[in-house]
């Protein structure tokens, strides 16, 4: 009888093999009544060993071109940290056995990080736990990997990043009781191309060695003792995935449309000019979101007009005759730039971000608009404003555009003075007042990620509330419906550029609400195109009625 365990996250792929319970080398047993100086000598030796090992792993990762290399360097540094060393030394001098002293101090340090009101720092708590485990491992002095049979599925309570990297290459896959979807362990498994599932819970640990396991990284599930039928189903699914890829390739040159021919344009979201090629290869008919933040991040001074102009033109060159929606700078106080000192805000998502930042720094906005108007001579550029909440926001931006166009005209610079100026619908205010915004906007694009966060009042990265975040909640769908209705009445096009736009399951309802264009990561286009080609306009409308929760 097979049992399914659901995990918290997975590294894509399917693996089948015998379970092998991976055990951390037995934790060193402290000699009874060990003198403090002897215990501290063992501690220092373990620190040296752990540092050497972590540095070597960092080098290996770096040589392989993996970004996780820095992680091991950071852990090596923590192994020798003064807080840790002083804390352990003090406890040992008080007569505490070494192993327990390390465990206690590491737990205290973890607790300090876990309490900080910054999600990034809270995550570092896991680094500290890994450091503790590495130290205990070094203390046991046993780095020899147990003999793992080829093709085995590793079962463990949790794996530190170092342990993940160390697994022999003949391992078929792994499943861990602990761990989350964004843990380094899963990132490293993906980098290695090993199918894996993390966070499946304690039950997996009770599986006897040799039991057949089917690890499905795509659905983040582990099937214990799968029967013939389940195995066959898994194989068929792999075959089906392969066939779907072939089928979708056949649709490549067709535009996005429903089965009865109603067009729904499929555009791509890109973050750099180089990704325009990817968009074209996946059959994008336009770019629905070109994020311009890459131009502004990771540098000491803002990009000048010519640099921006060159970046915008590069996309036009790669996708000639396609509409290219370029979003103006969209950052906030959670991501301050060196040349743009922003005071820390208690609530960055309700603070100065998107167009509000442009309003505080019109100099940056004007430079970007100048570059956009100049580039617009060479193609179909649409200018999109992020974080608009009121018609006054749009009116302000329109006035800036006119001012910049007048200045370019006065200077005799080649430019297009009136490219389409549209707004992202990503706040409930913009959705509710969409009819007013539609009077002066040339187009709408639903920013479903933020729209869902603001509508549901849930931070999608929140540790305990993330499960309440559903971009396909009826409340979010009704916001989209409001914007779509306003766009239709005003006769302006409406699209979507949030993650919902790339979800094949959401595509019918989005089409049914009358969206003209769905924009998504280039790789998502083939699956959405296929889904749309399977349904009629009437079916799409029925899906929309279900989505907004207005079924009879």
């Amino acid at each position, binding site marked *: 009888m097979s049992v399914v365990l659901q995990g918290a996250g997975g590294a894509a792929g399917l693996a089948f093999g015998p379970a092998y319970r991976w055990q951390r080398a037995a934790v060193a047993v402290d000699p009874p009544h060990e003198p403090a100086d002897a215990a501290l000598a063992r501690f220092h030796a373990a620190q040296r060993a752990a540092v050497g090992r972590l540095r070597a792993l960092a080098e290996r990762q770096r040589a392989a071109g993996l970004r996780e290399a*820095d992680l091991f360097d950071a852990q090596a540094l923590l192994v020798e940290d003064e807080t840790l060393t002083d804390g352990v030394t003090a406890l040992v001098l008080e007569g505490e056995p070494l192993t327990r002293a390390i465990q206690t101090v590491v737990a205290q340090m973890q607790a300090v*990080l876990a309490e*900080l009101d*910054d999600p990034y720092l809270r995550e570092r708590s896991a680094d500290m736990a890994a450091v503790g485990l590495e130290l205990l491992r070094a203390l046991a002095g046993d780095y020899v990997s147990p003999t793992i049979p080829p093709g085995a599925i590793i079962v463990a309570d949790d794996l530190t990043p170092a342990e993940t990297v160390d697994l022999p290459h003949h391992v078929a896959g792994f499943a861990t009781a602990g761990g989350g979807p964004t843990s380094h362990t899963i990132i490293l498994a993906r980098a290695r191309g090993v199918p894996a599932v993390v966070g499946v819970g304690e039950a997996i640990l009770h599986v006897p060695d040799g039991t057949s396991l089917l690890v499905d990284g795509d659905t983040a599930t582990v099937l214990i003792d799968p029967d013939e039928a389940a195995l066959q189903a898994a194989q068929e699914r792999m075959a089906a995935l392969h066939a779907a890829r072939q089928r979708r390739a056949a649709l490549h040159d067709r535009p996005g449309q429903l089965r009865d021919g109603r067009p729904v344009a499929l555009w791509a979201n890109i973050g750099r000019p180089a990704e325009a090629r990817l968009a074209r290869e996946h059959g994008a008919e336009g770019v629905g979101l070109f994020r311009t933040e890459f131009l502004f991040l990771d540098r000491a001074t803002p990009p000048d007009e010519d640099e921006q102009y060159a970046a915008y033109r590069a996309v036009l060159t790669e996708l000639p005759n396609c509409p290219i929606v370029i979003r103006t700078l969209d950052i906030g106080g959670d991501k*301050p*730039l*060196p040349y743009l*000192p922003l005071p820390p805000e208690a609530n960055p998502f309700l603070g100065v971000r998107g167009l509000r930042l442009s309003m505080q720094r019109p100099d940056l906005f004007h430079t970007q608009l100048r570059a956009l108007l100049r580039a617009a001579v060479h193609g179909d550029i649409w200018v999109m404003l992020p974080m608009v909440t009121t018609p006054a926001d749009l009116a302000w931006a329109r006035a800036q555009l006119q001012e910049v166009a007048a200045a370019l005209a006065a200077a005799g610079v080649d430019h297009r003075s009136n490219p389409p100026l549209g707004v992202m619908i990503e706040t409930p205010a913009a959705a509710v007042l969409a009819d007013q915004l539609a009077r002066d906007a040339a187009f709408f694009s639903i920013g479903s990620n933020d729209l869902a966060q603001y509508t549901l009042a849930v931070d999608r990265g929140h540790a305990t509330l993330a499960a309440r975040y559903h971009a396909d909640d009826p409340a979010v769908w009704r916001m989209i419906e409001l914007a779509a209705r306003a766009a239709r009445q005003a006769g302006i096009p409406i699209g979507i550029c949030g993650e919902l736009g790339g979800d094949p399951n959401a595509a019918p309802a989005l089409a049914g609400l009358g969206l003209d264009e769905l924009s998504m990561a280039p790789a998502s286009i083939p699956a959405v195109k296929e889904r749309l080609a399977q349904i009629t306009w009437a079916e799409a409308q029925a899906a929309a009625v279900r989505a907004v929760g207005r079924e009879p």
Partner: protein
Amino acid sequence: MTEVVLTVNNPVGLHARPAKVFVETVRAYKSTVTIQNLSRPQTKEVPVTAFNLLQIGVRQGHQIRLRASGEDAAEVIAALTKLVEENFGE
């Protein structure tokens, strides 16, 4: 006592490799060096150690104040200032 206020401009802030270089530089001198993240007013002034750098979470754009006391205080502050101003050579 030597003191300096700096803005950290490199992309990852005082984490990963920059944190490593920072801590190793401090370890190379005899003076005691403390750091405070002025951009996170709720954090305290703490000695420069790997764990403390984690705790005060210095990200790109943050302002820090460094204070050193000891025989080579001026030298260590000069070395750290150079690191920060040159974005850790990135």
